[in-house]
């Protein structure tokens, strides 16, 4: 198939950027979206042009590196990551707009590559259970009800790609933060740091310059791992509870 691509090109963080148009031909429906971009880049290199920079690594939908807004949708039209999106989702002759994640907290590094270290800093501020190596009790010492374990898992599936922020009209990181808060706070192991975790993570989230939540629901729609919108309400509840109770640690 033959496609017209309009791609955001930006030399580096400080340079101005613009949408640039490329034609690509001979695209197979079995290609992944990134393989389609590989095809474009091979040609650009041979033409002596700068290939399009984009983040990618595992190409099997789990590392969370890939991050393209395709025709206005984070990760494109299917509910999956960009690397698992295949060209069969497009038709011959289509024009496709490709842009980076847009958020103040995700500055562009080059072309379609953005800096998501703000996510790491949110985790650093409390997205863990303090258990130094070697200090763990026997694994079966604390049974966890299956429902709680499943609930924790559902939230733990987050791959930290940032699609929630990219899709949110406010550039909010509530779904990302909520996923980690819920994962750890529902487990008995996470209980001792329950209050400080949610207070600190939310404070960092705000300090990083993400927007607030207006419950538009776009984050959960874009999430390739299906982190559900009610996770946000659950985090709000944890946060309000923590402000009432105060931190224990």
């Amino acid at each position, binding site marked *: 198939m033959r496609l017209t691509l309009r791609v955001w090109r930006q030399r580096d963080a400080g340079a101005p950027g613009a949408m640039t148009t490329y034609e690509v031909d001979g695209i197979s429906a079995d290609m992944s979206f990134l393989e389609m971009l590989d095809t474009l880049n091979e040609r650009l290199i041979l033409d002596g042009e700068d290939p399009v920079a984009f983040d990618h690594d595992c190409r099997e939908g789990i590392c969370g590196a890939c991050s393209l807004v395709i025709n206005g949708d984070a990760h494109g039209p299917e509910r999956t990551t960009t690397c698992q999106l295949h060209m069969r989702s497009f038709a011959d002759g289509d024009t496709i707009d490709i842009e980076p994640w847009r958020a103040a907290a995700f500055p562009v590094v080059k072309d379609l590559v953005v800096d998501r270290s703000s996510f790491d800093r949110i985790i650093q501020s409390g997205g863990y259970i303090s258990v130094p190596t070697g200090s763990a009790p026997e694994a079966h010492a604390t049974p966890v009800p299956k429902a709680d374990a499943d609930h924790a898992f559902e939230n733990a599936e987050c791959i930290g790609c940032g699609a929630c922020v990219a899709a949110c009209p406010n550039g909010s990181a509530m779904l990302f933060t909520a996923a980690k808060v819920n994962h750890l706070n529902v487990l008995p192991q996470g209980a001792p740091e329950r209050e400080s975790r949610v207070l*600190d993570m*939310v404070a960092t989230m*705000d300090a990083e310059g993400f927007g607030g939540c207006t419950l538009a629901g776009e984050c959960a729609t874009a999430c390739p791992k299906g982190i559900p919108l009610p996770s946000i309400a659950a985090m709000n509840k944890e946060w309000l509870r923590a402000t009432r109770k105060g931190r224990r640690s």
Partner: protein
Amino acid sequence: MVLATRSDREPSLPRTLWGSTIGKKAVMAVSGLIMLGYLVAHVAGNLKVFFGPEEFNGYAHWLRTIGAPVLHDEWMLWIVRVVLLASIVAHAVSAYQLSRRDIKARPVKYAHKRARASYATRTMRWGGVIIGLFVVWHLLDLTTLTVNPNAQPGRPYENVVATFSTWYGNVIYIVAMLAVGLHVRHGFWSAAQTLGAGNAARDRLLKTLANGLALALTAGFIAVPVAVMTGLVS
């Protein structure tokens, strides 16, 4: 690098609330729910217009004497007014600050626009502004009577009929009430999420409740101008 580290001294509760996006949302949610409660009472009172001028004007007079003889004349009315004013201010200021923040969080917009992305957000923001402007007009019209065509103190029934006998009165009112409906529809559900009352099992119930409230309020409020226009109330 911005890092929220654990500090020894805890900030006060109001400070924590006002300093956080979630806290500000909670302020919006609570103030919104207070105003929603007021609207429910307001629409119930409005519907008394269908029982004629005596009953409607009597009801309006009673509003000034609630709590008597413990409370002096109009005291209750002023208490309600103060609470409402505080709610409006808290609601509007937090909405303004949060919106500013939201806009700043995406300095560069997407080139490929999508319609649905900001539907709810936009209705809330612009709906809020419309409702705010309406409240000003509404107070000038039926409280201070500054712009009311009839402007007879103590005769609210006649004043209402006079307002809805003008085309612009109807237009302003109906547009505002539609905005109220949309605002309540997303706002009520949203408040429930913000206050942590939402979960997957309860989501359908909350959405139904939000839709029901929005519909009942809008229909109840619009019933009055429609009745005046059709001559049912005159």
